């Protein structure tokens, strides 16, 4: 694709209206193209102003108190660090959520331990869950930090044009993590199954569900095929998984 061709995609990208191959190609290109980045910022500013022209409608008066009370329950904001790479942001988010959850649970547990043993057990279980999430996030971060780690970009297919994902994996240890966004919650009784495709038939590599915002950070089980993977793919399957793909494919990408 020529430079002009990418610049032509910028107005569509600013409206988040790209999909399919255009989207995958543009996202891969814009990371390293200062001209497209500058143009994208200018067009995003135009898109953002569309919103400011929408008629203003005051919400009901009680909402203000609801918002301020919700902010009251939140920890005071702490100034963040500068822009990070997309992957680090995903990993940092997982860490931050785990940290906040764990801290909140700890404080809560302190108060409630004085009140009731049952309450304390519940807090403990949630703390364990937070610790497990933190360990998961640490594992992801550790994998990302290794020099041998490779990355594949997966584009959303017709069944999920907004979806996008990356798989990072270490061919030597066969550890792999998939980071996806833009997926709708799987239909009832279904899940998203990952496939590692090397020299033979697709090898199943776990089933995941996405959160309410359509995102997931998923650690793939260790598979020998990961050492010689050519393609990663994701299909919609029964939630317990199937030995071979049967449902529509939502994401695919070459391990180039």
């Amino acid at each position, binding site marked *: 694709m020529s430079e002009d061709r990418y610049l032509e995609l910028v107005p569509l990208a600013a409206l988040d209206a790209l999909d399919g191959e255009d989207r995958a190609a543009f996202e891969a290109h814009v990371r390293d193209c200062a001209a497209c980045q500058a143009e994208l910022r200018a067009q995003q500013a135009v898109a953002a*102003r*569309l919103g400011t*022209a929408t*008629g203003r*409608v005051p919400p*009901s008066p009680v909402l203000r108190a609801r918002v301020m009370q919700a*902010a009251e329950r939140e920890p005071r904001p702490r*100034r963040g660090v500068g822009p990070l790479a997309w992957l680090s942001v995903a990993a940092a988010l997982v860490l931050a959520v785990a940290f906040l959850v764990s801290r909140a649970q700890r404080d809560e547990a302190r108060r409630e331990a004085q009140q009731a043993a049952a309450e304390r057990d519940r807090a403990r279980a949630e703390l364990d869950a937070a610790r497990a999430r933190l360990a998961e996030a640490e594992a992801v971060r550790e994998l990302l930090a290794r020099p041998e780690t490779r990355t594949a970009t997966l584009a959303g297919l017709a069944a999920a044009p907004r979806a996008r994902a990356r798989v990072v994996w270490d061919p030597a240890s066969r550890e792999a993590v998939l980071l996806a966004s833009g997926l709708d919650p799987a239909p009832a009784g279904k899940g998203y199954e990952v496939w590692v495709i090397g020299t033979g038939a697709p090898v199943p590599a776990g089933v995941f569900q996405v959160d309410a915002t359509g995102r997931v950070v998923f650690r793939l089980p260790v598979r020998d095929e990961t050492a010689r993977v050519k393609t990663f793919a994701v299909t919609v399957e029964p939630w317990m998984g199937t030995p071979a793909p049967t449902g529509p494919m939502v994401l695919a990408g070459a391990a180039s």
Partner: protein
Amino acid sequence: MAAGSNMGGALRLATADSSAEALLRRTADGDRAALGQLYDRFASLANGLALRILRDVAEAEDVVQEVFLQVWRQADRFDAARGTPEAWICTIARSRALDRLRRRVARKEDSAAVDLPAAAEPATDDALAVRTAVASLSEDQRRAVELAYYEGLTQSEIAQRLGEPLGTIKTRIRTAMMRLREALQR
């Protein structure tokens, strides 16, 4: 000397003009009163946009709550070089509202289809400028941009909805956005 005092004047003026930005800075430092003032200034903007996208009063107000909690958590991410506080809040509100719209579509629910309440607050000069720019688009161009902006449709989805070739839609949106940009720079 004269130049120096002019610069000082310009600086003071800039500080007074950018009070929404000052409120965002105070919010980033954990000042809840500043968050309250941002709410007073921009809640009806966020609500109007969320309502236009979701057409559901209760859901729009949930979005407004999410928007201001996100402002509370992430006020330090506001970058004045990339737009006004208003535009930033609109970007957050649109993204939150479209997330809900897509979940609703995924659940195959129909939109509540309530009538939009009339905008009760006078539009700002900036809003009028944007409306004038949008009015300069052809009907086809405006429709395509609105499907992307307010319904969150992708280029293929818009082509399908309008029953036109993908290439036509891409060109149309590109032309419309260029035209808006030109009109707004004037």
